[in-house]
């Protein structure tokens, strides 16, 4: 892998992590009034896959979409404006954290109903195939979505219609607080899916380069052959289901597991690697400061931005 790619992957991780650090910092001010489902700890899945996509490959995501949004668009001005409920946000303040979308940069939206983004992603993949475009549709979802009927319907439909779709399961092992062992009558979804005409991939790592390489192979196959692929990325959610805090005191999961993942934290791995590959730490710091500044300015603008006028309430119900 060339160093430019390595740095770009790090940029994505760093942007996602630092934006969420800013959310943690400013959330208590109660100016961002939106339920935050943090990507914290899981950023490598978003960074690795989004970097393997083209800008105009549409993605659909779950409500845990901070990292996917940021890694796909690499912008955080509209992002923070939306979280602060300002008209300069992605939805003029109407979406908050859970329905972020930016189709001009390939983010087709997020859903807060688990699994509901899969079917639209297959529909977009069908439109791509119908129009003979060279794009792929990509959908991110958690392991909770696998329990939903629409997951199986969407998988079946994609395999049946042979559409260019990339299913990305961000498997953090929990649906809210319920582990997959208490929800699923099988041990690994990959084995269950083998009968479908879908190519399957799986990774258990916080290493963004490893995820990126897998994604490049999967997406390349999907694009070339116009056929569905499924990537299962086992990852770890550092924080509570919704909110900005840790929740190990609630005792539903093992802190030792967290420590294992934290040791292999994606940012730490990638930063160390950049230095090992001969990139001057000064340059890394320079990049980090640029991103910090980008975030700082975005938050400043968002705070100063104006909220929608009352008459906007009824605008956009129908177009």
């Amino acid at each position, binding site marked *: 892998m060339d160093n430019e790619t390595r740095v770009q992957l790090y940029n994505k991780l760093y942007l996602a992590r630092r934006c969420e650090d800013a959310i943690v910092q400013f959330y208590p001010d109660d100016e961002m009034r939106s339920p935050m489902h943090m990507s914290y700890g899981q950023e490598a899945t978003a960074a690795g896959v989004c970097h393997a996509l083209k800008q105009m490959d549409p993605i659909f995501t779950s409500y845990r979409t901070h990292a996917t949004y940021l890694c796909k668009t690499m912008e955080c001005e509209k992002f923070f404006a939306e979280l602060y409920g300002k008209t300069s946000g992605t939805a*003029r303040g109407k979406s908050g954290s859970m329905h972020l979308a930016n189709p001009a940069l390939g983010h087709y939206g*997020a859903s807060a109903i688990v699994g*509901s983004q899969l079917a639209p992603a*297959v*529909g977009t993949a069908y439109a791509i195939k119908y129009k003979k475009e060279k794009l792929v549709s990509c959908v991110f979802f958690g392991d909770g979505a696998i329990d939903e009927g629409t997951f199986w319907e969407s998988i079946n*439909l994609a395999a049946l219609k042979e559409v260019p779709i990339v299913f990305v399961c961000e498997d953090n092992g929990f649906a809210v607080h319920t582990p997959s062992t208490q929800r699923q009558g099988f041990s690994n979804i990959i084995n269950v899916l083998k009968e479908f005409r879908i190519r399957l991939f799986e990774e258990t790592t916080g290493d963004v380069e490893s995820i990126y390489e897998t994604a490049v192979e999967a997406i390349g196959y999907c694009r070339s052959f116009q056929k569905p692929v499924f990537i299962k990325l086992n990852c770890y959610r550092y924080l509570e289901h919704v909110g900005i805090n840790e929740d190990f005191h609630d005792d539903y999961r093992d802190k030792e597991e967290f420590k294992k993942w934290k040791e292999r934290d994606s940012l730490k791995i990638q930063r160390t690697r950049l230095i090992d590959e001969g990139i001057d730490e000064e340059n890394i710091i320079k990049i980090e400061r640029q991103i910090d500044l980008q975030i700082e300015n975005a938050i400043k603008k968002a705070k100063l931005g104006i909220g929608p006028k009352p008459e906007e309430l009824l605008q956009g119900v129908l177009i």
Partner: protein
Amino acid sequence: MRELTYCEAINEAMDQEMKRDNNVITYGIGVPDHKKIFGSTVNLLEKYGASRCFDTPLAEDTMTGFALGAAMHGLKPIHIHIRVDFLLLAMNQLINMLSSYNYATGSHFELPIVIRAIVGRGWGQGCQHSKSLHSYFSHIPGLKVILPTTPYDAKGLLTSAIRDANPVICLEHRWLYWATGAVPKESYEIEIGKANILIKGTDLTVVATSWMNIEAIRAAEILKKYRDVNVEVVDVRSLYPLDSDLISGSVQKTRYCIVADNDWVAYGAGAEIASKVYESCFTDLKKPITRIGFAHAPCPTVRCLENEFYPNAETIVKEAEKLLDIEPINMIDENFYSHENRFKGPF
């Protein structure tokens, strides 16, 4: 002018729009099979191919979400359900996703999606093949709901629905499929959100939805014949948007109003229409509004109970007699519509 059946009018609207615009696609369970959704999708597979007219897995919810995603990327899907009842399986995509997606994400997309669904009735359709549910859909911001009654309206409203940038639900009563009427050959639109006066009158307004218009017309004939009562029949045509101006205008003239809805009465479209009329015609009304609709029970299959379940022209006449304080009509010599004598329609 040339006459078509309601079914042929629907087919012609789809055919002309698919010819006009390559992005229009249609799908649903049974859409391309030999029965062709009672004939309403004939020739579409043959003319436009399997990529634009296809069968689907039995996955109503996912196929509704599929329409959303396809529309977001430039297609114009027409998703067909042979019974409205099956749409209940699609309520998540319909109400959590499709209706609110644009509003919640920032109005970035055009969503020209049409959902056609057929309202069943008679010959033992029973509780899972006879619902209309139009008040459910009309309750939800972000959806348009049309219920064409005449072949002319079926073609014009469906054409408008396909060209509309918003999701439109088109509910088609099965018995109307045999109705015949004048339909222009060329393509035309009827604005969604405009009601239509089917019969002009001065003495009583009957506001009706879907099949109940046919019953209202029959009731108007009887009331005219026996009591010289001139009934104005208003076909709402579209429940959202609702043309309350036209409805209120009629009631301000006649000062009596019956709402005959092809659905349950409680919390139904009739309640909404009656409220709108009260809001603008409170002092014009000489009597409270009468609401007519299905009995408050699941639809039974056995004939004698089914006859009790559905209101018809006779129900409307009897309510009109009470409202207008006129002598009861002996209707023993009058015929009423039933599925035994296949409806051919007065249009």
